[in-house]
Structures are given as structure tokens and as C-alpha cells.
């Protein structure tokens, strides 16, 4: 009892010594053992692994979003002056010779041609516009003479007959008696004038339907060049359709290409697509483990562990392999250079 109350207790000191001593003893044991020879490791000699280099072709590819840009329909412009007595009708298809509207009770007919008529034409006149007039009146059955670009007697008769159909007794062709709608039949989506309106040369009287004016290509931040080598040109790939694309432009506006893209997307007007380099690039494929990065960031491969390093620039690849310039002519590389003290370090 006296020991308990009056004597000194050693219990806490023993516990403290245990707590401090055991880790120390463990560390000392680990240190002692780690310095001992490892028979397992010593039993497996490390040898350089040489692997052949494969070659393949790659095309830089990146994903972009594209969207069709609809443009407001084209306005049809009259050259006539007067009061509208018959308004254009929206929704219909207009062919060459159709009466689109009337001014001062004279019908204004649609004209399909590669270019509009711009001056009055009479006997003796010559030029491309005379050819267009000959073709126009020929298509309507008024003219059966030769298409020679000269306003001769046959065209004079044809113009008179055409004019008379519009209740105009004249041998001179007035361009205001027709309205040019382009080089093919057109549709009127909207009438811009009503009966009673006044029109003058240049007044839009009808509007065609909206049309696809282009396709916007949203490139990745920094541009497509960041996604690979597109210096040989690029193509936009949508399904089976491949359309030429000017990198950096952000748009495709060639009419035929736009229409092809619209057809490929229909009924959608936007999607994800691929931009692909037009010409594939030939590359050498090496194991990712064969790449050694020097202290200055230079990347090398080694044909042998004793050979000089071959500096490379990775062009792509994945977890297991990397693609490098094919022109280096590599045939074989060391797949495990990191296991050796290389005699020639990788530096620039």
C-alpha cells in the first residue's frame, strides 16, 4: 500500500519508452535489410529490348460543330413605273413568261435568264442583251429566228407580238415589261406590294424564299491548327460527304457545297462534324516507353543504349505508342531505355 502511495511509479516511463523505441527499432531493421543483397532482383538481368519501328499514315482530325446559315430570300425588283394593278401572289412557283404582277394594267412577265435586260432594245441594236432577249422570246414561242445578238426584222416582229400581248403597240422592247427572276424558275414567298401601290425602277415587289447562304464551322479555341497538321488542306466530313474547307475561315460558302451539306444534314440544320487533313501524313510508330525526355525537355529515342540519341517530336499517339516523323528513317528502337544509364544523354 505504501508503495502505491509513497513510492515512485515506473509504468508511464515504460509505456513511453515502448512508443518511442518500437518505431526506431523498426526503422533500423528496415535500413539493415534494405542494404542486404536481393537475390530475386539479382536473379533477373535487365537487357535492352529492341523493337522494330512500324510506319503508318495518319490524317489530322478534329471535331467541329457546323450550322447552316439561312439568308433572307432574294428580292425581285421591277423596272416599271406606275400603279400596281395586280399584286404578286405569294406561295407559287414562277416560270419564265408567267405574269408576276401588273403596272397600269400592263402585265409584267417573269424572265428567266443568266442576266437581266437593262436597256430598251430596238432595230439594229446588238449585244449580249439582245441574245438574252432572243432566247427569252424564243422560249415563249414569239421568236423563231437565229440567235445572233442582232435586233433584226424577225426579232422586231417577235417583240411587237410580245408587246401586243401586253396591250402595248410598239416595236421596241422595254425592259420594264419583264422582271428578271434569275437563271431558273423561282418561288415567291412574300409579296412586297399591294394593288394601288406606286412602284418605280428599283422597287422590290416580291421576295423569294429563305435560302442557305453558307455553313458556319466553329473551330476549336486557338484554331484547327492546334489539332494537327492541316497544311496540306482540310476537308469537312459529314457522313459520306467530304467538302473542301479553308482552315481558319469558319465558313463554307460555295453554293454547290453548301447545297450538298444542306442535303446531307436535312432535316437538321446543325451537327457535329469532322475536319480532316486532306492529305494523310506518313509517320513512324514507336513504343511510348521508348521516348526519353532530357532535362531540357528534348525528347529522344535510341537505336541502341550505346548509340547517340535521335531527337524526335511526338506527332500523336496514345498510351502505348507514339507517332514521330517518318523521315528520320528509324528501323528499330530501344523500348526500355529508362532502365539504363545511357552513355549519351538526351539533350538538344
Amino acid at each position, binding site marked *: 500500500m505504501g508503495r502505491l502511495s509513497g513510492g515512485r511509479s515506473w509504468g508511464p516511463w515504460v509505456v513511453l519508452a515502448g512508443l518511442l523505441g518500437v518505431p526506431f527499432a523498426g526503422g533500423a531493421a528496415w535500413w539493415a535489410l534494405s542494404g542486404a543483397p536481393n537475390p530475386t532482383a539479382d536473379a533477373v538481368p535487365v537487357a535492352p529490348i529492341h523493337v522494330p519501328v512500324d510506319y503508318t499514315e495518319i490524317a489530322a482530325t478534329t471535331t467541329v460543330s457546323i450550322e447552316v446559315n439561312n439568308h433572307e430570300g432574294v*428580292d425581285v425588283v421591277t423596272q416599271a413605273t406606275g400603279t400596281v394593278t395586280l399584286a404578286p401572289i405569294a406561295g407559287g412557283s414562277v416560270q419564265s413568261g408567267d405574269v408576276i404582277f401588273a403596272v397600269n394594267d400592263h402585265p409584267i412577265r417573269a424572265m428567266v435568264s443568266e442576266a437581266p435586260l*437593262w436597256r*430598251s432594245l430596238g432595230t*439594229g441594236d446588238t449585244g449580249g442583251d439582245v441574245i438574252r432577249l432572243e432566247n427569252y422570246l424564243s422560249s415563249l414561242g414569239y421568236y423563231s429566228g437565229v440567235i445572233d445578238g442582232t*435586233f433584226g426584222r424577225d426579232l*422586231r416582229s417577235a417583240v411587237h407580238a410580245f408587246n401586243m400581248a401586253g396591250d402595248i403597240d410598239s416595236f421596241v422592247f422595254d425592259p420594264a415589261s419583264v422582271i428578271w427572276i434569275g437563271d431558273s424558275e423561282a418561288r415567291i414567298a412574300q409579296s412586297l406590294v399591294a394593288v394601288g401601290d406606286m412602284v418605280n425602277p*428599283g422597287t422590290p415587289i416580291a421576295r423569294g424564299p429563305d435560302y442557305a447562304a453558307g455553313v458556319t464551322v466553329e473551330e476549336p479555341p486557338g484554331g484547327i491548327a492546334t489539332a494537327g497538321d492541316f497544311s496540306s488542306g482540310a476537308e469537312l466530313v459529314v457522313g459520306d460527304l467530304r467538302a473542301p474547307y479553308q482552315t481558319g475561315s469558319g465558313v463554307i460558302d460555295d453554293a454547290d457545297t453548301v447545297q450538298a451539306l444542306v442535303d446531307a444534314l436535312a432535316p437538321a440544320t446543325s451537327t457535329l462534324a469532322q475536319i480532316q487533313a486532306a492529305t494523310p501524313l506518313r509517320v513512324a510508330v514507336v513504343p511510348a516507353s521508348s521516348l526519353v525526355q532530357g532535362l531540357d525537355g528534348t525528347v529522344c529515342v535510341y537505336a541502341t543504349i550505346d548509340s547517340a540519341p535521335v531527337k524526335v517530336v511526338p506527332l500523336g499517339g496514345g498510351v502505348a505508342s507514339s507517332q514521330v516523323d517518318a523521315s528520320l528513317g528509324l528501323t528499330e528502337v530501344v523500348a526500355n531505355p529508362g532502365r539504363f544509364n545511357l552513355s549519351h544523354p538526351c539533350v538538344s
Partner: protein
Amino acid sequence: MRANRGRIVGTVVLMTAAATVATACSAGPSASTDNSPSIDSIAAVVLEATAAGADPSQIELFDDGVITYADYELAMNHFISCATDSGFQVPVTGTVSRGGVTVLNYTITPPRDGDIALADACYERYAYYVDSFWQTSSSDAIAFAERRAAALAAPLRQCLAGYGVDVAQDASFDELTAAAIEHLSVNQQENCLSDIGYSSWEG
């Protein structure tokens, strides 16, 4: 009739010879720069009219190498008389200016069940070649076209530039006009020829 044919042939031979001389002369630096129609263009018209069977009264009007308004009016009156004799009504309501030359303003109404081709035949026989030459190749017509080109070239060039159309610095008026038409084909609301008043320019 025989005498007329002989005269026609003589005229053609004379014109052809004159055309040859004119062509040779025009190759030199002293080629004429006035507004007179070239002799070879007249000779070509005479040849064509003769081949088409035009009436000698029409061909004779080319004999002096120029077509005047009096020549034009005479030819048109022959045509109108011919058409009237065929039953057409051809009232002349006056004259109008077209392309810098004065032309008759007339209408033509065929008789009941009449064939307009009869009037066309009258026109070709008596007036077509003179009418055509008067309106496009007479000295008045040529002078008008030159005045119009001189007056409208600068505003046309300026208009095209305003619409962003590039044209050569030394582009001719015809080239400027072609550029305007091409641009008009793309954008109907940018009509330089209308903007500069090409059709209404009276000189």
C-alpha cells in the same frame, strides 16, 4: 427593173471597192476619227440588203454613203404605204428620240384576219436596212453613243466602286457597262446603270 438591177450591182461593186480602200487606209495612223459610218459597214449593209431582196429604193439611199433623217423618213413612208396598201392601219403619232436619233412613233393594226407577216415583209423590203442603220450606225447615233460614254463613264465607275466592284483603271465604257450588268445579275438592287440614268440620258 433591169436598169435597177444593173445599178444595184454597180453600187455593190463600188461599195466593195471603197471598202477595200477604206480598210487599207484605216490601218494607218491617219485613220479617220470622226463619227461618220465606215464605208465598209455601209457596203456590208448594201450587200446584205441586196441579197435579201430589198427594194432598190431602199438600197439607193445608201448611195451617198450616209443615212440622214430624210432618208430614214422616206424609207419608212415607203414601208407604211406598202402596209397600208395591204390593209394595215399604220398611224404615225409623231416622232420620238431614241438613242440620239429621231424615229417615227407609229402603231400598226392588221386588217381582220390579216397576217402581220405581210407588214413585216413590207418593212424588210422598204425600210429595215435604212431603219437599222439610222438607229445604230448613223453619224448621229454614233456621236450620241460617244457623248453618252464620255458623260457617264466617270459616274458609272464611281457607282461601281461604291458597290465594291473592282474595274481596271483603263476600263472602257463598254467594259464598265459589262461590269455593271454582271453586278446587277448578283444583286438586283444595286443597279448602277439605273443609278446613273443610262436609259434616260438625253445628251
